[in-house]
């Protein structure tokens, strides 16, 4: 499950302009990297152009999935990932990134189509490579599942404990009756043979 590209594009006018982007091209050999990078940019522009404002979209192309989210202000966020990446996490990430981007750069800054560097993208692309770690909902779910497993084990251990405790009960019952017999016998010994 990998994210290959995160980008923010302006899709108000028809040829969409890439405002900032981050790529993770470690999977490709050095020679193909430039080609892949261009392909990514091109495709993200196409997808951004087809996404209407206020709409979320998932496009599948060969083995990649493009997650797009267009804001009504005129910018769209694109994430390119492989097919396994959960859509929910991708869209959550898109929402977050776009919020931060819009908070940082007012509309005038990117109106012209100038490049707006957004270093936070780098951190995000690294952090969200493993969605289970980064996404809060998935993290919660995972921790809860782990806790559930631990509790099941505890329950089984408690059952075993119960068995042992009942064993102990029986043994202590036997011990108690035997000691009682011992006491009685010794008392009898004392009272019986007074002659000697």
């Amino acid at each position, binding site marked *: 499950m990998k994210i290959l590209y995160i980008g923010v594009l302006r899709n108000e006018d028809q040829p969409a302009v890439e405002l900032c982007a981050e790529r993770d091209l470690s999977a490709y050999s050095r020679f193909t990297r430039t080609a892949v990078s261009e392909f990514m940019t091109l495709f993200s522009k196409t997808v951004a152009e087809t996404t209407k404002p206020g709409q979320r979209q998932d496009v599948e192309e060969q083995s990649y999935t493009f997650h797009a989210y267009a804001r009504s202000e005129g910018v769209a966020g694109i994430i390119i990932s492989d097919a396994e990446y959960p*859509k*929910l996490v991708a869209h959550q990430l898109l929402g977050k990134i776009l919020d931060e981007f819009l908070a940082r750069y007012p509309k005038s800054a990117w109106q012209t189509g100038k490049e707006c560097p957004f270093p936070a993208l780098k951190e995000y692309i690294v952090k969200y490579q493993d969605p289970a770690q980064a996404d809060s909902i998935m993290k*919660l*779910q995972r921790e809860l*599942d782990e806790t559930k497993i631990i*509790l099941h084990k505890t*329950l089984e251990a408690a059952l075993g404990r119960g068995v042992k405790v009942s064993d102990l009960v029986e043994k202590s019952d036997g*011990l108690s009756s035997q000691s*009682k017999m011992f006491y009685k016998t010794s008392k009898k010994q*004392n009272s019986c043979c007074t002659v000697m």
Partner: protein
Amino acid sequence: MATTHTIQDRTAEFRSILLQAQKTLARQRRPGAPASQPLLPSASQNGTATPPTRKQRSEFARNAAAIGRGISATMGKLQRLGELAKRKTLFDDRPVEIAELTYVIKQDLAGLNQQIGQLQQLQRASGTATAKEEGEHNKNVVVLLQGKLADVSVNFKEVLEVRTRNIQASRSRQDNFVSAVGAHQQPQQQSRTDSPLYSTPSSARARSPKPPGTGQGQQDVLSLDNPSGNPLYAGQNTPQSQQQLQLLEEGSSTNTYIQQRGEAIEAIERTISELGGIFGQLAQMVSEQAEQIQRIDANTDDVVDNVEGAQRELMKYWSRVQGNRWLVAKMFGVLMIFFLLWVLIAG
């Protein structure tokens, strides 16, 4: 109420008993003894010497009997009304019959009340002329009848309350049907609430295809309503539904995303509640085991006590044995002497 649960017509038995009683009365009256059964109306009607007091008593008895009959008839009607009021179906409600019965019962109750009032007056008027026991008996009879009438009226009120509650409940259920869905379901609803017995114009359309399937009862009405309702829906409301579909389409992408998030969160909620349940089970098991552990504790305490006691006894024994060495030696010495003696004597 329990006494008049089953209203059987036992007038024939009554008449035969009366005849027998007449004969015994006639035999009794010939020696001139006063009437011991003044309440048998036909006995006194037979024209034997009827002093005015007896006539009054018999009149009293007649009225009392009539009132008793009236009360039992009213109770029968009230039972029927109660059964009708308890039916909670939306379909087979018979308001006409219920209203009729209510009216009749009210009239009966008023009439009976009046009759009892008359009877009471009669009883008071005749109070001076009759013997003491008969006067008391008449008073008791009046009180009994009044009590029965009061029971009947109380039951009547309860039945009316039940009826009003059911009406409210059925009305609220109807409201649920009507308000929750749009216009295209109302024609369905109307033909559904009409019982097959009631002929109204709206159900005529539902009933025309009914004759082929009359044997199946309520389900038919419901299943036939759908085809009768659907052409209505299809004809009138397609422009509306088209608009709705369009709206749905546009919102669907955000909808699905939000829905998915909601589902994920619901899954988390479920897991958390499961965890809570597991914790509860664990706590329960541990508390059960705690009791057993207490038993073990008690047992070990017993063991300690017993062993200590046994040790004490053994110490006592040992000290005795210790001290008793001289005695033991002496006893052995005595035994040896006897043994030697025996050997000597034997030898």
